[in-house]
């Protein structure tokens, strides 16, 4: 069955430390991949997307993600986390023109 898995429900990092949020997908072909961020009480904001080409994509707010076909992964990274990055992060997959499917999300807490 098609699925998007975010193995980490909650991650805590210190401000200034590096961050990696994991995302794995299970689809027949290479889907279109997205990362969204959601602050409390807000809708989801697009951070970055991957369609094809260079497997390392850059997004807004200093985030980047790397597509690894062999591992069916699309992990989100940031070299130095800021307190304002505390939020919920969702990985999403779109295989056809329909139905963007989301993972369960990873909640990020940033320690001062």
């Amino acid at each position, binding site marked *: 069955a098609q699925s998007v898995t975010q193995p980490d429900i909650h991650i805590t990092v210190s401000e200034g430390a590096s961050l990696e949020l994991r995302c794995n997908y299970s689809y027949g072909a290479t889907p279109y991949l997205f990362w969204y961020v959601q602050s409390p009480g807000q809708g*989801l904001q697009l951070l970055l997307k991957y369609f094809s080409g260079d497997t390392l994509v850059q997004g807004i707010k200093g985030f980047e993600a790397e597509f690894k076909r062999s591992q069916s992964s699309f992990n989100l990274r940031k070299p130095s986390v800021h307190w304002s990055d505390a939020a919920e992060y969702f990985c999403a997959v779109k295989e056809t*023109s329909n*139905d963007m499917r989301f993972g369960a999300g990873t909640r990020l807490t940033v320690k001062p």
Partner: protein
Amino acid sequence: EAGVAQSPRYKIIEKRQSVAFWCNPISGHATLYWYQQILGQGPKLLIQFQNNGVVDDSQLPKDRFSAERLKGVDSTLKIQPAKLEDSAVYLCASSLSGQNSPLHFGNGTRLTVT
């Protein structure tokens, strides 16, 4: 550009009552989505419109949920009658047509059913 507009932001109703949510997508976006986001979970697609036609409503509980997108612009989502388990945030999103088009989300309507 103006974003996706949703109203109301919050709604509290008793079970068995009815409720309606409204969404105005980004101008020019042909595709409109309604998602349900239960606390602690990712958004789940309820229904997808392409212009004023339904593309996918396979996960919409049709015995109590209905949605329409008259004239292919604004959309309303209705629940009648509401159950306790319908308590969630209802997110509207829109996009241009095409698989590589990202979704743009509104701020959502938080529904509490008591």
